């Protein structure tokens, strides 16, 4: 995770567009200023950042489904549950399934697995819009390369 840049996903482990599924990996850093306040003496990964990890994972799936022509923006979070504490240094497996592709929006069901246990899940709605500008699209492409966006996924534009 690059918490300072709000880039929580380290790599795409598996992306199966035909099955509308993605799995990513995100390792919580061992040290970060966030843990100095959340909480002193008992560092925990904030639940809102777990939601963000699921949102970013869902985003990569939606971007892939749109052939990198459109961007996903988090619009709604439903039924978010946090079942266990997440501590510094833990490696998370983040999963998302595309439940519905609407016109200008998508709905995903997402979860986080730690040591084989489902520790967090939510249903996310994302707005699907054209990239606001070329700079953002280019930055997303560079990030995609860093996280291992699969080359076999058709990419236009």
């Amino acid at each position, binding site marked *: 995770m690059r918490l300072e840049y709000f880039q929580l996903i380290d790599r795409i482990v598996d992306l199966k567009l035909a099955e509308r599924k993605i799995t990513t990996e995100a390792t919580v850093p061992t040290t970060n200023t966030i843990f100095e306040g959340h909480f002193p003496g008992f560092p925990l990964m904030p639940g809102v950042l777990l939601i963000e990890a699921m949102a970013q994972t869902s985003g990569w799936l939606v971007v892939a489904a749109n052939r990198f022509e459109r961007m996903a923006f988090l619009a709604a979070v439903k039924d978010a549950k946090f079942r266990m504490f997440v501590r510094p240094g833990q490696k998370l497996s983040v999963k998302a399934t595309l439940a519905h592709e609407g016109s*200008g929006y998508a709905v995903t069901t997402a979860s986080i697995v730690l040591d084989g246990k489902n520790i967090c899940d939510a249903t996310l*709605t994302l707005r699907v819009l054209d990239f606001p500008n070329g700079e953002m699209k280019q930055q997303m492409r560079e990030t995609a390369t860093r996280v291992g966006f699969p080359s076999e996924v058709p990419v236009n534009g």
Partner: protein
Amino acid sequence: MSSTFDTIANIIAETCDIPRDSIKPESHAINDLGIDSLDFLDIAFAIDKAFGIKLPLEQWTQEVNDGKATTDQYFVLKNLSARIDELVAAKGA
């Protein structure tokens, strides 16, 4: 078997916590019922699932923005019901 209007009125009532009896065929989803664009995504999702269609929200929005259509054509519920019936019929054609 409930009508298209009844189905979407029930969806709106449940999704937006609006009393069912205040939702009329003449109601405008935005102007009369106060549904915002984010809530309408939830409604669209429920409608898409209920009818097995994909409401063309982006196309409708573009037509309104371009002055080619009014919001009444798509967001007055009796008109929305008619659009949904057309989409369902087109799917079965």
